[in-house]
């Protein structure tokens, strides 16, 4: 099957029910996409499919023919980081960092839909992304900061 990952056309020969998570990690070597639970409970595997944040552990390969897939590696525009990444660095959000790619992909989608999110918006939209290290106060601050960076261009 064929789809596009971070702007590059890719073709893979896998079982139709292999989740995108494992296609990306084990077949294409894209490792920012993390395995955490396999049942859409942690959000560590979040990627954008046609611009929408989705759990790649729940997307069978055969549902992705022609899809545009973006991982954290593809979120930056060349050398310029996405505002979410800049804010994540400025606020030093990460501890172990294992969930943070998924957090940032989810946050980028939130900001695309809601440019000035309230704390309640953040709660609603980020609730599926688990951080076992407990970086939530920093995630919240970084999302508000990223929103401001995007507004200021």
């Amino acid at each position, binding site marked *: 099957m064929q789809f596009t990952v971070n702007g590059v056309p890719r073709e893979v020969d896998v*079982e139709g029910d*292999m*989740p995108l*998570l*494992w296609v990306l*990690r*084990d*077949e294409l*070597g894209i*490792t*920012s996409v*993390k*395995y*955490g*639970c*396999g*049942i859409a*409970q*942690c959000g*560590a595997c979040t990627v954008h499919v046609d611009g929408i944040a989705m759990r790649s552990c729940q997307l069978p390969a055969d549902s992705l023919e022609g899809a545009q897939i973006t*991982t*954290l*590696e593809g979120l*930056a525009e060349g050398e310029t*980081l996405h505002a979410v*990444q800049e804010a*994540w*660095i400025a606020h*030093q*959000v*990460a*501890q*172990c*960092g*294992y*969930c*943070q*790619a998924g957090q*940032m992909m989810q946050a980028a989608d939130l900001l695309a839909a809601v440019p000035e999110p309230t704390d309640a918006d*953040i*709660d*609603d939209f*980020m*609730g599926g*992304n*688990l*951080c*076992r*290290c*407990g*970086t*939530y*106060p*920093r*995630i*919240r601050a970084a999302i508000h900061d990223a929103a401001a960076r995007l507004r200021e261009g």
Partner: protein
Amino acid sequence: MSRVGTIARRSFLIGSAVLAGGVAFGVYTVRRPHENPLEAGLAEGEVTFNPWVLVGPERITLITPHADVGQGVAHMQAMLLAEEMRLEPGQFDISFGDPSPAYWNRAMGEEGAPFLSSDQGFAARTTRTAMGAVMKVLGMQVTGGSTSTPDSFDKLRQAGAIARETLRRAGEIRTSIPSDQLRCEAGAVVLPDGTRIPYTELSAQAATIDPVEDAPLTPRAEWRLIGQETERLDIVAKSTGQQAYGIDVSVPGMVHAAVRVNPRRGVLTGYDASAARSMRGVSDVVEVTNGVAVVADNSWRAFQAVNAVDCDWGPAPYPAEQADHWAEVAASFTEDRLDREWRAEGDVEAALSGDVIEAEYRAPYVAHQPLEPLNAIVRVTEAGAEVWTGHQMPRFLQQQVAAITGHEADQVTLHNQFSGGSFGHRLEFEHVRLATEIAVQMPGVPVKLTFQREEDFAQDFPRQIGMARGRGAVAGGRVEASDIQIAAVSSSRSQMGRIGQNVPGADSQIPAGVWNVPYAIPSYRVRAYAVPELAPTSSWRSVGASSSGFFGESFLDELVHAAGADPLAERLRLAIDPRAVAVLEAVAEMSGWGREPAENRGLGVAMVESFGVPVAEVIEVEATAQGIRIHDVWVAAEVGTVVDPVAFENQVQGGVVWGLGHAINCEITYADGMAEQSNFDWHDGMRIWQAPRIAVRGVELGGSVRGIGEPPVPPAAPALANAIFAATGQRLREMPFNKFVDFV
């Protein structure tokens, strides 16, 4: 092994009393330095001054041997070295280095001594020294017990200062300019005329001279990196998807493996793998201890295939049903199970002869479950074994692997990795053993074992299960007597037993946070009872204090309320350690304690000392129609000196979230011998919508430097329970709290 080594080996422990080994060592044994592991691998033109610094013509490498499981200690270690070497971030690489006895942990032995942290008496000091000797003679390289910062603080600054002064001396030889006219700055020796000679250009020169051991430390007022807000060395990589964890490592020729091991921890009595063998990508099905492994060309295919193996599991070696675990704990308050009477002050019996306040508390098994599932790559050849994984006990790992492959421990190479969390999980060895068992059946082939989340839950060694019974008395508005009896399984004995180690003496973790309270209660008694092993358990972030801190500070709160006293004022009145007073006063001020809370709101306080760090927390909750909402947490901790303020705040916030989340909604229960919770849908901890604002203050009284990874955890649960009582009048005496109240 030598007799001394044998004595020490038998007596090693984490977090409990040990003396047998320490006093037996001769002075020479203890003083003899370990070899510098960097000497062996020096390339042309490289020089090493000690086990932490490697300078070559091309680059400078700082060895940061404490494992980084997210707590930020790779950065912390590098900053201590870079401060003294006058290096700027970006001028050096970091490496975890090879396992070596030279990286023995100087703080962990002291921490295990069963004395109050404020006790500087002869017995306390002698015991700490003796326990440090055990750690040194055995070369115990361990990351745990919140010891990375206290272990590193003096040691790495000295190592960096020696490197700096030796390079300065090399500059003197090179230029014939007296060294007192040479400055060390930004990775270079600077001549009086401003000419810079980078350290890398001095490495060959430096290799010809002995290290300058007389190297002064930089005064605090001149620190550029220590105590300052610096950018974590890994923060860009972790914000751009470039940070590789163990699970991301790929080795040429690698195959992918998955296991299923008896979830009852009994034997494998039979299995049918015929369906699995015919699945796409599957190359082999092999037996491992108590289970079966599938080898395939992709992780997911290995998962699918191993799940298709039909396994017959033998029974559990512990009670099959959870109710029987609790019954065993409840039956353990007996003379023959008394582990130790830790405190006996005043006349408890007389004080409790009148009106007595009684309460009973429970803390369940809880799983570790860091977000990166356990994984390891192992390749076994005739010459030795190579391992790629993130682990906190590298030298024990070498022994564990060698015992399976038949090599000597030093023939096992560990490539230690950054880890996606641990919380105690990466002190265990099962995944490494299993990967090794598969790898020995496929010589020369790198085998990558990844646990499915469900397997990780099933094979996790949870926190100890425990109960407490408190009896107390109050008079004249004061707490007068408290008698706390705690019965718990010994996670220390369970954990060390799995690697063939004894924990001699009483286990100080059973009553941790209670036996060592910095309060002067006129009549105070603490007894710990050791429940015989039930389900195997392990160290879980903050270990014994995670449950006993909840018992002690909840019961104290009940007594304070019975006395009609103010919870914070009464704690301050009882506190005898200036550090405890300081953190209580800090949270009183931060939270505006004493104000009238808004309707349906309440404030609770708790203060627990663990790992030598008193931490006070005040929590404000609101009882809403949808349940309890946690609005704010104010935290103060006394660590002597805050070495890395960014990591400090992050660890405190994370520790509070960890403590609260698990207190609210997590437990592991057993049915038919198996853990009933198998994924984050039934054991998730805190989510962002429940996370409160968390204000953090580091109190620095300038004494011993302590670690902050674990101490913020224990006060969180009792502060929350006490706040819920203040808001609703309902006492929560058992975790998880969501069995009794709803949370928003």
